[in-house]
């Protein structure tokens, strides 16, 4: 859920767009991060740990801890807490440690 009224802050979220999370269409804004948009949609489980497959969410939200790695438009290990939403982008749960593409 997004905060509409705040005693101190106003939020400039940019333009409303849609993108895909595991194939499901989600609303987001161009000035917010993928992690923020997913949270606003109530999605907190972003993936699973590579070995024990335990659910993983966000921890630091500033690009430091690597807990939020996801595959974005085919590229693995994207820190979704510091990557902004783009219209039509495909955000997917990552399988294992991900494979770097050579293109």
């Amino acid at each position, binding site marked *: 859920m997004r905060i509409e009224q705040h*005693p101190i802050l106003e*939020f400039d979220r940019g333009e409303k767009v849609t993108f895909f999370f595991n194939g499901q269409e989600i609303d987001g804004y161009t000035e917010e991060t993928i992690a923020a948009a997913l949270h606003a949609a109530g999605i907190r*489980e972003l993936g699973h740990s590579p070995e024990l497959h335990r659910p993983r969410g966000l*921890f630091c939200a*500033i690009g430091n*801890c690597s807990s939020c790695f996801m595959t974005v438009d085919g590229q693995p290990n994207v820190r979704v807490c510091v990557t902004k939403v783009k219209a039509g982008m495909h955000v997917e749960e990552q399988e294992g440690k991900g494979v770097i593409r050579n293109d």
Partner: protein
Amino acid sequence: MIREAEVLVIGGGPAGLCAAAAAASLGAKVLVCERDYVPGGQLVKQTHKFFGSEKQYAGDRGIHIGKMLVEEALANPNIEILTEATVLGIYEDGIVTVLHDNKHLKIRSKKTIVTTGASEKFLAFPGNDLPGIYGAGAVQTLMNVAGVKPAERVLMVGAGNIGLIVSYQLMQAGVEVAGIIEAAPRIGGYLVHASKVRRAGVPIRTGYTVKEAYGNGKLEGVIICRLDEKWQQIPGTEEDIPCDTLCLAVGLTPLTELCWQAGCQMAYIRELSGHVPLVNENLETTVPGIYAAGDVSGIEEASSAMVEGRLAGYAAAESLGYEPEKAKELKEAAAAELSELRSGPTGARILAGLEKSASLLAARKGGE
């Protein structure tokens, strides 16, 4: 291609922006590398008003201080800020590598000021990796930067200033705060912050810790329990707190990877909250030309980080030959400001840490 920089500042937070402004004010050309989209560091989410004196913008909110520092830096023709630029390494030959725009940049700088700040500490307990368990700063980013309601019901761990302030900010965002637990027998943060959250009806319970977190796929609740005077859990005192979010505000640790990699002499100093680079009175590390300022060289507050940044910035410009007399004066004024900031009880701990650091540095020199 290798890019040249007179002064490279790594990290565009309060320390880094002040370092850049200081060095630039004496005539040096400064490049700031910031890993986020926007400079300002963690000031961008700090809606509370600062303490200290007027020189460090007391009474003003962190977000406004950050905005002002950024505007000042952007308006200065001697400063260039590169955002979304993550510094990856500092090498023996003085080359600094940076990931920017999916490219690997190489920078050769005459002086480098490391102002990488800190990261949040974690806590060990069963279930601590469940989605819904965050650093308090992460929750602050979600609600104050993104404007997303981060939770319905939160349990806060840690009654230091961050735990108290973020609890209050959560309430401002419409979140229910189930309580604040603190392992220590006393509240660590300022009384004024503690009173504010208590007045709002949030219980602060000292001598409590997290026994375990539970939930299916995401956090559903936390079992807390009391600690005895030896910090051991007391069986039979467990309580179940249903909540969808657990915030950890259990301290910060300096982000020193680049200092280690650059070969700076490091030491574990408890009062400074971890391993820190040893620095001299100019905040220069044991690697000539590499300075460290702000939380990276010891966890303190944004106000002291700003002054440390200025001191390092003046020192770096001075060592490049810019206005040595003026630089000396400005450095002395900054050092005096730091002494003033550290005159309170929290400052006493920092001063004890800095003393340890200075004696280790002296011992090192003696051994050469």
